[in-house]
């Protein structure tokens, strides 16, 4: 079937199998391999992207369901001359090690910061429950998200 999406600001027209998962559409059809797959039970959040501005696990959505939607992946998050504040905070606070959870974690954090105005540690931990990381023990991820939440919003486009 034919679908049209806007991915990282660019319109994409594709022919896809109806059963194709959004994450495989992004990775295998569009070649955007920044978004990762960490499980097959919607448990890990490595595949998190923004779908019409809201974070979703892209392994739980069919590409067909994203028809007509706009999608932001990790590749589309940074601004023209610098990284997004969440990306910067992850580097500054060493919120990543192997980097595998990172794209999903960053996208989940971007949306969490947008949705919850008064984030504190407990809310960040609650909000990131669906994003697993095996390397960092979450300590520095939580720190990075709280730091980014304090950074004045800056257009990422």
């Amino acid at each position, binding site marked *: 079937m034919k679908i049209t999406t806007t991915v990282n600001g660019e319109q994409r027209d594709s022919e896809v*199998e109806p*059963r*194709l998962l959004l994450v*495989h559409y992004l*990775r*295998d059809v569009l*070649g955007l*391999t*920044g*978004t*990762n*797959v*960490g*499980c*097959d*039970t*919607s*448990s*890990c959040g*490595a595949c998190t992207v923004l779908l019409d501005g809201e974070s979703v696990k892209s392994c739980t959505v069919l590409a067909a369901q994203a028809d007509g939607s706009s999608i932001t992946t*990790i*590749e589309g*998050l*940074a601004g023209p001359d610098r*990284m997004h504040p969440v*990306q910067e905070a*992850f*580097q*500054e606070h*060493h919120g*990543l*090690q*192997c*980097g*595998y*959870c*990172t*794209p999903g974690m*960053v996208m989940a954090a971007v949306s969490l910061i947008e949705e919850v105005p008064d984030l504190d*540690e407990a809310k*960040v*931990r*609650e909000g*990131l*429950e*669906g*994003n*697993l*990381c*095996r*390397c*960092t*023990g*979450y*300590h*520095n*991820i*939580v*720190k990075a998200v709280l730091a980014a939440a304090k950074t004045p919003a800056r257009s990422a486009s």
Partner: protein
Amino acid sequence: MSILGNRVQRREDPKFLTTGGVYGDDLKIEGALWATFVRSTMAHARLTSLDVTEARNRPGVVAIYTGEDVDLPPVPAGLPGVPDVMARPVLAKGVVRFVGEAVAVVLTEERYQGEDAAESVFVDYEPLPAVVDPVSALTGDVLLFPEHGSNVAVPMNEPQAEDFFDGCEVVVRHRLINQRVAPCPLEVRSGAAMWEGDRVIQYASNQAPHGAKAAIAGLYGLEADRVRVIAPDVGGGFGAKIGLYVEDLILPWLAKAAGRPVHWTETRSESMLALGHGRAQVQDVAIGGSRDGKVEAYRLEVVQDAGAYPSLGSFLPALTRLMTSGTYDIPKVEFSAASMVTNTTPTVAYRGAGRPEATAAIERAMDLFAAEIGMDPAEVRKRNVVANDKFPFTTPTGTVYDIGDYGGAIDLALQASDYQALRAEQATRRSSGDTTQIGIGVSSYVEITNGAGPPGEYAKVEILPGGKARVYTGTSPHGQGHETAWTMLASEQLGIPMEDIEFVANDTDLVPEGGGTMGSRSLQSGGLAVHEASIALVDKAAKLAAELLEANADDVVLDKVGGRFHVAGTPAVGRSWAELAEAAGDDGDALVVAHSSSPAGPTFPFGAHVAVVEVDTDTGRVKLTRLVAVDDAGTIVNPLLAEGQRHGGLAQGAAQALMEEVRYDDDGNPVTSNLADYAMISATELPSFELVAMATPTPINALGAKGIGESGTIGSTPAVQSAVVDALAHLGVRHIDMPATPERVWRAVAAAQSTAAE
């Protein structure tokens, strides 16, 4: 000013944060077929038939191979003492021995087609009785390898002295279960193989590419130079990716058979069955001593579950043995072990590999002993730790600890956690009968790092035209930040800014030899090699500069601020690295040093942790509220990275204590075979950690550095477990096996209450 010791941000990060890394599954391999494995659904069975007719006709199927088709020899454990008959066939032949064992492989044009086709392969099994736990395996009622006559993969017996506990006023015995856990790197295994003429190029999600190269060359009977292994970005390993697995090893065969490259990525559900598991020890501890708190004798007997085919897991007791007596000066220590095969996933190394098991055993034993004599567990530990003036200290099992201040670490942890106040708070809750009780767990640990295999590591440092530098290393970073740390080490000696130093690793064609990254070895072996090679390179360059300056080499010094050599006292006339590179011209050797480090031996990081939990005595729910960690890894090159290692380790330790367990039913069917069923720890279940710095440099290497990758796990597991038990100690609870799930805790409370009521 030195760059070492500073919180330098990782130069690896921008890539991972903007485009993501390039992991195995991300590789774009022209013309590649996808490999999908068909896996056994039975724990133990005879394979009576494999029907691939329907599968062959599915769309996109190029070929299907079974164990009968593949003419590769079985893969031996490669460990001393493991019987040859226990070698693992690349694809099962005749018998399957665990759920998840590969029985056939399908090659398709596309990924989804492989899953469809694999589902259409029909396998007939004739079930055999299964043996699932290693203690039952000892009876030999069910044999995995009848030719061998027993299920023992590796025996390790030491004489048991009959009068061992004579003279002890108190002797406490207990069986402890150090449960099987899943390493769960967030990236599952992935790889690819292709032939270029008579050379095989293999990509593998792996921690030790040179070891992988040797394994492929060995299995295929190839000269080493006909194999190239590349580890692309690797999404975590934790020990489970040290070795190659049969799924990796068959890829070159498939690529040859199909005449095309072959690409493979497992699913998480496959990974939970086929990536090795960790821990899996049954431990009988017996500890004896005097009522005033002096431990006089300690015995540890281990039954290790090796899984269906012995791999690194069968070797874990050897590491456990090294650390049997922990931080304590115990006059008499005995250790014995047996590694058993069972109808389960093979076990491998997992963060700590044998040492967390040793620490868990001795630390639980200390607590049981403390409870028996009615003494504070921190106090009992302090009375028994090795005194500071006894280093280097040789333990009764023959391990030589380099240096330590074990009592100092305990004091620091007690202070930082405000231990006395915690005990006071606990007393208040106990007397008020609050249903939320608090528990405090204390652990004292020492572990061995860089302790397996040759202690040295390869490095090469070279100056590039223009005066930049390039560092090559035989370590294989996959999250540890070696690119940042190694370029810091080189920059420190060369006086060349980090951003002008390139970094090369993880490719056996670019780096001629290497040991890889495991066992917390990298900094003290590979970092040390970079450090030493850089110093040697400066010496070499000084000689060249001396020639150009017509001076005596001994008089030439490097001004590290500007990266310029000059005669001491006359800084105005000198030569920069760029000028030296130009002068060296075509002499390729002039400004290159290749060097293998040879540290004097392993090192022994130590520390102490205090965990605080809240336990709901009505529901059994446990909340970890604090984790205070003193971890002494000697000199720290980059605290940001070292802290990150500690955090990750702490979380994995707490995870084992509270949540994670790979479970099988009695027939060997896994019941935790995906991330929905396996309770991998998330941010919600953890607090932020309280890290306390302590640094006792080791005399073993020139950096003074010890390993830091596994300390967090080793110290935190028993601290958290003990905290749960401690919360219920006033009810008479002495021990709860890991993981301390709400159900287990609730049962322990109920059992204690019914005993009290009797």
